[in-house]
């Protein structure tokens, strides 16, 4: 039984995330955790930008926030966002991973550990390999792995790295990602 959708992206991924969130219903059945590479000292603006089109509420969670459906949790700037056993958000100020804080690997790895096969990991456009190792963890624990079609990406380095690192169940256009998620929303 699916529990969570987890999305990562970097350069070129904002439009993709916006597209996805604008096509999901307000009462989408699963929490969505999102880590986007972002400017370190810019604490405002990204949530607001996503909220212009997203039907689902987007927040940058405080540490120890409970993870619930009908919510998008966006990793705040200058923190790693992790999932904690007990289904809460855990933030960290540890060193950058793959030059990034927040790091996609950190979100994906901890999500895989907590949700095991009950999750979907989606990796979008980006210019480095952050997220590839995380996808490997997701796959090894039985979760579904999806990358944005490199042909569609502004920068395909990120999905390419994941494709090299592990088995990816689906290479999807943004449109196909949306259809996949809508179907899961209907059947659970």
């Amino acid at each position, binding site marked *: 039984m699916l529990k969570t959708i987890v999305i990562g992206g970097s350069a070129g991924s904002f439009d993709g995330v916006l597209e996805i969130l604008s096509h999901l219903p307000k009462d989408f059945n699963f929490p969505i955790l999102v880590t986007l590479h972002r400017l370190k000292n810019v604490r405002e603006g990204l949530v607001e930008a996503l909220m212009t089109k997203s039907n689902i509420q987007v927040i940058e969670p*405080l*540490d120890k926030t409970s993870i619930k459906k009908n919510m998008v949790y966006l990793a705040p700037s200058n923190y790693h966002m992790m999932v904690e056993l007990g289904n809460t958000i855990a*933030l960290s100020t540890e060193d950058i991973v793959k030059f990034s804080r927040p790091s996609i690997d950190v979100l994906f790895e901890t999500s895989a550990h907590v949700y095991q096969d009950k999750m979907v990991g989606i990796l979008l456009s980006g210019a480095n390999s952050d997220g590839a190792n995380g996808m490997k963890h997701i796959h090894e624990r039985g979760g579904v792995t999806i990358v944005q079609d490199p042909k569609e990406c502004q920068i395909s380095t990120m999905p390419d790295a994941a494709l090299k690192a592990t088995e990816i169940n689906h290479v999807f256009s943004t449109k196909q990602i949306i259809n996949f998620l809508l179907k899961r929303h209907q059947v659970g």
Partner: protein
Amino acid sequence: MLESIELIDLQRALKNVQDKYKYDFSDYALSSLQRRIIRFMNIHSIVDVDILISRLMADAPFVNQFVEELTVNTTEMFRDPTLWLSIKEKIIPKIKDLETINIWHSGCSSGEEVYSMAILLKAEGLLDKAKIYATDLNEHVIAKAKRGNYSSRNMKLNVENYQKTTISGSLEDYYTTSGDVVQMNEELLRSVSFQKFDLATNHEPFMKFNIIFCRNVMIYFNSFLQDKVVNLYKNSLLDNGYLILGAQETISMSNVADDFTVFDAKEKIFALK
């Protein structure tokens, strides 16, 4: 390369450390603790928790490194510049006429926050009135903070942060550079007393403060321990004293939340009623 360890093995390792060295990690938040132990094991090419345990039991300096890896976060000076702007504009006016200003940096780690506040106080002409306590759980870490050496490379970010705080002068006034290393001016520490204090095991108030800093420390504790620590802070603040947390932290879920007002919601500054 080690990628994961069993919870039961992790707990076994920590129990051994607690029994012998009195460090209690049992109420630390699990996700980050696990990641850090794995990272430590990989750095030292240890593939087996039993080998980790035997090395920890045999080698006290190795334990220092272990504790450092689990608890120290290299951070920035004036992290979240808007917080420091808020301290300058909203808190300084309220405390500048006090005879003494008591400040506690709990979990001072590598010391950047201590130097940041000392610099702000110096710029405001208040450093001599301040009595500052900087504590952490490990003496080795405290010694590092006391030394005040940081890499020149990191100072670039610190200077950028400083400029955004609008504090007068420039950050370069407060340190000297020798090649790759900067040395913070010693006079910044003249009002600072460094002490060992373990927030995981010690919840006895030792003094009352006008300001307590606890930024991005409690994110590494579970809710149970966090509650104990917030209670300690409640009992360690003077009336209208300020508790300053990290940018994405709160005390609103604690059982003593009602004893505080929100002084600055955006910058996570709380005031004791």
